[in-house]
């Protein structure tokens, strides 16, 4: 063991980099959040939780992220089950590649793709005008952002859930079947409990990703009132560093906590099995 310990030194650069460029700067940011912004009489943290325009923005962000997370899980589950259970489906490799390619798209690009699909010059608008005569433009508001979130969350979730579905012992399902369980009962009684851990972990990842998403909303339009935009506005337009710092810290803590709790839960379920 003593001989092994000599290896520790080679991890030093990573640790130093992390301390110097992340942990200490973060601590400093958290400190700035405790300062009192100009013309105010309380620390930025206090303002952030008491002033409606900040917590309204927080509620918007949480509601949108929660909605996008649930929608993603509901859509991704049948897709993952289908792909995992049909390994011989013709064209599966190509389909998988297409579904996973958007993993590499940054939020700005996702935002642009949403504009192309549902913006003023988008196909949705064109189709709607042709069919009903009424224009249909979703891109520049909450609806567009919701679609954008689905766009980048779906590929992330499908991969995780597929692995989980493949991990279900098919004998469990067959045993339930011989005991008389219908497909629906097998899904509810056997499959869903077996997928709980993966669904929790994937859900947390979706939620945290959506909460911090900036690029997508930046492209769609800075009028949408979500937390990352609020932070950006406070920092660049109002030069209100304390509030930007306080909001960043709150947002960072929230996303990290969700991920941490969900991953612990998922790990516990995995051990329980």
């Amino acid at each position, binding site marked *: 063991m003593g001989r092994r310990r000599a290896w520790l030194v080679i991890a030093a650069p990573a640790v130093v980099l992390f301390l110097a460029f992340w942990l200490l700067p973060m601590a400093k940011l958290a400190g700035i959040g405790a300062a009192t912004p100009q013309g105010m009489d309380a620390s930025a943290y206090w303002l952030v939780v008491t002033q409606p325009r900040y917590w309204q923005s927080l509620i918007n962000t949480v509601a949108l992220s929660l909605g996008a997370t649930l929608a993603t899980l509901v859509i991704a589950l049948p897709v993952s089950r289908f792909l995992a259970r049909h390994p011989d489906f013709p064209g599966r490799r190509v389909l998988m590649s297409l579904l996973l390619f958007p993993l590499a798209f940054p939020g700005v690009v996702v935002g642009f793709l949403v504009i192309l699909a549902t913006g003023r010059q988008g196909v949705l608008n064109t189709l709607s005008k042709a069919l009903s005569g009424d224009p249909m433009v979703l891109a520049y508001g909450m609806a567009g952002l919701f679609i954008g979130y689905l766009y980048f969350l779906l590929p992330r979730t499908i991969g995780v859930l597929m692995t989980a579905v493949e991990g279900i012992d098919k004998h469990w399902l067959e*045993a339930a*079947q*011989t005991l*008389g369980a219908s497909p629906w009962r097998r899904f509810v009684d056997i499959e869903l409990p077996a997928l709980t851990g993966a669904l929790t972990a994937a859900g947390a990842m979706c939620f945290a990703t959506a909460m911090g998403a900036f690029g997508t909303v930046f492209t769609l339009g800075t009028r949408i009132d979500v937390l990352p935009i609020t932070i950006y506005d406070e920092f660049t337009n109002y030069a209100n560093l304390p509030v930007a710092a306080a909001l960043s810290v709150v947002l960072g803590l929230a996303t990290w906590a969700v991920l941490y709790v969900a991953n612990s839960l998922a790990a516990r379920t995995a051990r329980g*099995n």
Partner: protein
Amino acid sequence: MTHPLTIRLDNCAKTWPDGTRALAPLNLSIDAGETLALLGPSGCGKTTLLRMICGLESADEGGRIRFGDDDVTQVAPEARGVGVVFQGYALFPNMNVAGNVGYGLKIRGVDAASRRRRVAEMLELVELGALAERRIDQLSGGQRQRVALARAIAIEPRVLLLDEPLTALDARLRQQLRVDLAKLLKTLGITCVIVTHDQEEAMMLGDRVAVMSAGRLEQLGAPETLYRDPASPFVADFLGTLCRLEGGEVATRHGVAALTFRPHEVELAPPGRGLPARVQARFFLGSHIRFELTLADGQRFTALAAPDAIWQPGDTVSALIEQARVA
């Protein structure tokens, strides 16, 4: 228990989508209340046959499966009323012991009170009464096996199907559970099919044994019949060791071209009376001693002798082959 039923398979074959034949067309009739053991090496089609009976695989066009007078060929597994013990048991990890055993009853809409009573009864039957609230991962291998069995019989199945029910257990436990299982099957009096690759298990549990190889039924009969009167060298060899000696000395002494016999059918004696042989190796196994021997022309065979046999490697002996059979 409900009245036991016969199982009849007519012209049942199985071809996989890629065209490989898992099972050649097969006719099989299992009597009411009988336990039939399907015995064969892995890949012989025995598990496929079992899965066809419970409906998890469908037979090729033209095959028919009947439980009593009831044609179940098109009936889905969930409606067939079969009790299945899966290899590895497939116990549901998200339910405790009672939850597993009572699951089939819950599906059938049995009310909670009757369900509890029935579960307790089943657990009593497999001697697990105290473990109803245990989680599955807190059970030993032997306990899991019995929970799987209780789960399968709790629904009062029309037939009971067991896929390698004891393979996952260690040797000593397997011996004991084999005896327990044989007793339980007699008590239940249910028609039962049990898949195994272990000949001793098949012979102990099966009223009749069906030996399978490469998707075919090689022979079907009572264990004794199969052992004493094997229809093919494959069956003979699969049910215990079979030795074969031919030509030369064998022809002169026994007047046949070749001899086939089992190791315990050989008696070793001082030189002079039987086939002259040389002891190559001696293994003391407690209840008996196993000798590896060669004839003068190099042919090898095995003999089992009482634990007081005195022969040592290098000795010359004579082998008296008792129930000498013509090959």
